[in-house]
């Protein structure tokens, strides 16, 4: 008769009410109707085994096996898809045990786009398409940086967006948003050393933290007092200069300000 009690500590982690009868529809996957894209896909299917190809809301998608990704891209490049707009991965480690890598291609002459998707298992490495498209140089590095997917025959597989000595791969679902311990203390360890961790103190990650009596951080906007002094309820007076003014500097008086009626300040 009673609704089961759900503990409320981590309510922000997910929408705390999920409708268990809700079935979210899927975007319909239609067969590819566009003749130009269809001809390109057919040209590819002659040498590469295409698992599936469909169109979802006017995005043409082609699913291939992981080892066929590079040959498929080479064939598409011959068809005119000379621009690799982006490539990255989606983390399905928990549900399917691997990553889904996608490549987004653009054909400028025919003004068509196509997406090539493939699935790789957790510790599998993928072949680099950098010889075909130079932009894969950086895209694959970013994919490695964020997910840990190794890329074979890449000219320079190093971390690109994070420091070189970062631990773990952030965009995996198992990595916490606020970072693990190595991440939380990264800058303190690097600049000052581990001994200063208690001098500087842990990070303040709670976005809603408010302490009325704290005058060492700047939380008391409008009622500022000196560092460490007693908090007061007096409003800090807004003044642009000291009362007596500063020698040789024009004294700014609030009474002398003119408020322009019109917004056009240059007229």
């Amino acid at each position, binding site marked *: 008769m009673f609704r089961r009690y759900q503990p409320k500590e981590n309510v922000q982690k997910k929408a705390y009410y999920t409708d268990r009868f809700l079935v*979210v529809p899927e975007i319909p996957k239609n067969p590819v109707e566009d003749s130009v894209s269809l001809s390109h896909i057919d040209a590819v299917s002659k040498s590469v085994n295409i698992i599936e190809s469909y169109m979802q809301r006017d995005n043409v998608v082609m699913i291939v096996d992981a080892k066929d990704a590079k040959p498929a891209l080479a064939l598409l490049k011959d068809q005119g898809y000379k621009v690799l*707009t982006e490539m990255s991965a989606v983390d399905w480690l928990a549900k399917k045990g691997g990553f889904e890598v*996608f490549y987004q291609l653009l054909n400028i002459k025919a003004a068509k786009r196509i997406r090539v998707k493939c699935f790789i298992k957790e510790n599998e490495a993928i072949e680099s398409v950098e010889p075909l498209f130079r*932009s894969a140089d950086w895209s694959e590095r970013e994919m490695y940086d964020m997910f840990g997917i190794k890329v074979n025959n890449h000219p320079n597989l190093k971390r690109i967006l994070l420091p070189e000595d970062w631990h773990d791969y952030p965009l995996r679902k198992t990595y916490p*948003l606020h970072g693990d311990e190595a991440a939380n203390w990264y800058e303190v360890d690097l600049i000052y050393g581990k001994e200063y961790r208690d001098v500087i103190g842990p990070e303040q990650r709670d976005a809603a933290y408010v302490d009325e009596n704290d005058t060492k951080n700047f939380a008391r906007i409008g009622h500022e007092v000196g560092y460490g002094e007693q908090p007061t309820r007096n409003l800090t007076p807004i003044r642009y200069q000291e009362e007596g003014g500063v020698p040789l500097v024009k004294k700014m008086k609030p009474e002398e300000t003119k408020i322009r009626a019109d917004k056009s300040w240059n007229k």
Partner: protein
Amino acid sequence: MQQPNRLAPFYENLAFEREDDRMIINFGPNHPSAHGLLNLILELSGEEIVKAYPNVGFLHRGMEKMAENMIYNEFLPTTDRMDYVAASANNYGFALAVEKLVGLEVPRRAKVIRMLLLELNRLASHLFWLATHALDIGAMSVFLYAFREREYVLDLIEDYCGARLTHSSVRIGGVPLDVTPEWRKAMAEFMAHLPNEITMYENLLDTNRIWRMRLEEVGYLDPEIAQSWGCSGIMLRGSGIQWDIRKEEPYELYDEVDFDIPTSDKCDSYGRYKLYMEEMRQSIRIINQVLGMYEGTEPALMAHAPQYVSAPKEQIMTQNYSLMQHFVLVTQGMRPPVGDIYVGTESPKGELGYYIYSDGEAYPYRLKIRAPSFYHTGLLQDWLPGSYLADVVTMIGSSNTVFGEVDR
């Protein structure tokens, strides 16, 4: 009195004259002309660059991971901070991607207002580009003039949505606010005033000997390399390739307005500079046409899709079910159908694309942002060798990179 710290002394970054007469220097992350946080490690032979290695990531804020924990509407202000020079363009790209994912139909008045905002942001971005590029080359007065025009644009945007820099002016399903007749009048006045200013900048710079010497024949970008690196926007059009997403895959009302796409065959920085000036004029042309399209539109600003988009404010305040639906949408978020989508729009920097993979939850399962400046910065690896050190500044400026986008 120095605070004790463990950072190694400074000179480890420089390796002077090795045996083969080459010097490695750091075009450091903190540089007045680096347009943000770009650490470019250059290997020089005399003044000529032999190898270049761009080191980015100094502004990586983890936006893609943030998106996996935020509902779609909540993430929209975060997109402002990517290309922070033209914030509405990023908002719009994200809103368009979600709208396509869900299948929303945006009302016409919202489309008109969105187009006005987009083109206004394009002007703001190009003016900023001109200001900083000229400042780097040395024309400091152009910096002040272009910022003066930019203040006009920011005033208009501030009148509309309240913020100068981080707008969040475009929402999923439409726009939140309507434009007043006074605002449209101020826009029309500004559009009448701006072409003369652009002509003044061109008169200052076009035939200026120093400007031409520093920009012509500098930064020759081969079209094949540009395509291979995934360049977009003016980097492609400056190399002769006619590709503008507004013409090829039109969104909003771009197929109803009349405008040209300037391209340049010269492939150098001077050609790109002329393209930016020409694009500003085309933006003015678009805005003048769109301002006329406002009359006669129905006063609907957000799409009518109760499952995904809240009702207008008047209904929320008076109708009970609208209030309940709004509450649910704000606290739990809307749930788009399962599937993935990629949408690319023409932001002032190039092709800004969003790839959203939704698994039916209120949070995107994966959001990948395709930032044009990311690839333009990677391009520096292949593009810089062969030029001189003084040209590095010109080429970085000419590629119009913004580091909020590169690192996200």
